[in-house]
């Protein structure tokens, strides 16, 4: 259930239940009034005990928040950490060498400048540079993070990336899967990494993701089909 709201609008939720607020919502400390601070669609999810409220808004610039899964580019190397860029022209974030599985003083990760990594934001204070980790902090084990080898990245809007990652009913990935096998890593920073066996298939996925971004869900099937047939035509020629 979602409604379009503008900053300062009245939000509708059940006032008798405890409320968890998410991104785009602000609680005035004085009056305890809950106000939207971004324009988007307000999403209220109800459970028996409490309810949560956030605003799903679209933007292009990513601001790190704890727990986000991101795709970053290594842009620098220091004595005990990497410098990682999550989007061009934004402040870079750090990825300490110790935030890798089985890391120790002697056992250093072997990423190079220009490599892509899949990581989780571990701390994001607005006064400090955000930090990433490539390890599941609770178990200390590898959790699918780390180097993304080869493939291609697609830059999409943040909202689209979130849909792809969280919305299980979003049809694009299953449609792509019908055409080819692929590995994918979706960063909520608007970077999607995708890799297929063959370059042409990766390219078809790349174009499909870009095209589908601005199209209604119902068109996705045709767009993907068209892109795949186009690249195979060129490959045959």
């Amino acid at each position: 259930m979602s409604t379009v709201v503008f900053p300062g609008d009245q939000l509708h939720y059940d006032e008798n239940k405890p409320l968890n607020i998410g991104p785009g919502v602000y609680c005035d400390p004085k009056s305890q009034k809950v106000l939207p601070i971004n324009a988007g669609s307000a999403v209220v999810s109800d459970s028996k005990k409490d309810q949560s409220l956030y605003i799903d808004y679209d933007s292009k610039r990513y601001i790190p928040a704890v727990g986000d899964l991101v795709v970053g580019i290594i842009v620098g190397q220091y004595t005990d950490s990497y410098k990682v860029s999550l989007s061009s022209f934004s402040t870079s974030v750090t990825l300490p060498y110790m935030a890798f599985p089985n890391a120790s003083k002697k056992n250093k990760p072997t990423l190079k400048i220009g490599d892509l990594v899949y990581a989780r934001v571990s701390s994001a204070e607005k006064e400090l540079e955000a930090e990433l980790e490539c390890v599941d902090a609770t178990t200390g084990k590898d959790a699918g993070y780390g180097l993304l080898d080869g493939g291609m990245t697609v830059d999409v809007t943040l909202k689209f990336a979130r849909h792809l990652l969280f919305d299980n009913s979003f049809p694009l990935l299953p449609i792509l899967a019908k055409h080819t096998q692929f590995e994918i890593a979706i960063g909520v920073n608007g970077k999607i990494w995708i890799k297929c066996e063959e370059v042409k298939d990766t390219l078809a996925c790349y174009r499909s993701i870009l095209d589908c971004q601005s199209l209604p869900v119902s068109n996705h099937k045709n767009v993907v089909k068209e892109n795949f047939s186009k690249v195979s035509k060129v490959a045959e020629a």
Partner: protein
Amino acid sequence: MAKDIEFSTSENKFILDALRQNLRLDGRSFDQFRDVDIKFGKEYGDVTVTMGKTKIHCRISCQIAQPYEDRPFEGLFLISTETSPMAGPQFENGNSTGEDEVLCVRIIEKAVRRSGALDVEGLCIVAGSKCWAIRADVHFLDCDGGLLDASCIAVMTALLHFKKPDITVLGDRVTVHPTDEREPVPLGILHIPICVTFSFFNPQDTEENIKGDSNAEIAIIDANLKEELLRDGTLTVTLNKNREVVQVSKAGGLPMDALSLMENCYKAYTITEKLTDQILACVKEDDSKRNQYAGLLSSENARDAT
């Protein structure tokens, strides 16, 4: 440039891999120019050119000024190309000393101004004391590569479209007639230069490029931003419909075989022909739209119309 757009090695490798298989990111073939869309504003000489996501606006203005002392019979013509962060965060405000910016500005200068595309002698009003000063302001609104090609199209279309107010000269007295009083007069355009930019990629190692005979370098026309950032070399050919090379600039970069460069020039010619026709058609269409009642007012005989 303030800060560069960051690129991963994977992306870099992928784009090259795709090029090896004759594939470009946006689905074009290697020698396919993007579709050019030309839109006119309300006034004469107000043009917006869109090529893919690249968008350029050009506005021509004129005023009466004094000619240079050493060239009393020539009017003034100035092209102002200022990059601003409006085109993309990689451009810095007020700083146009970056390598690419300087090259871009110089090539537009050479292609349009130094090649004599505008008849500056026709701008003279009173020799030595009064002439028209024509100014072309190019604004880069959005950058997705091919700024140079697009701005050349924009400037030339705007010059063709522009009309300056009519004047009467009586001795030293010059009367400028407002456009609503007397039909304004178009500028004298001698030829229409069109820039076509090629981007070179080297699919092998450097040594093979310099020493080898394979000449397997890849040349693509009208690169978009990503391709532009990754290319190893570029060649900008400016031609006009009279089969004249107006300007060629291959400022270093990947060494290319002379014969393949010649081939590129011929490819550029077909594009030049097409674009020239498109520009002329657009200007003509706009002109007839503006003058849809001219036929009614005209005192011409019917036989002239045929």
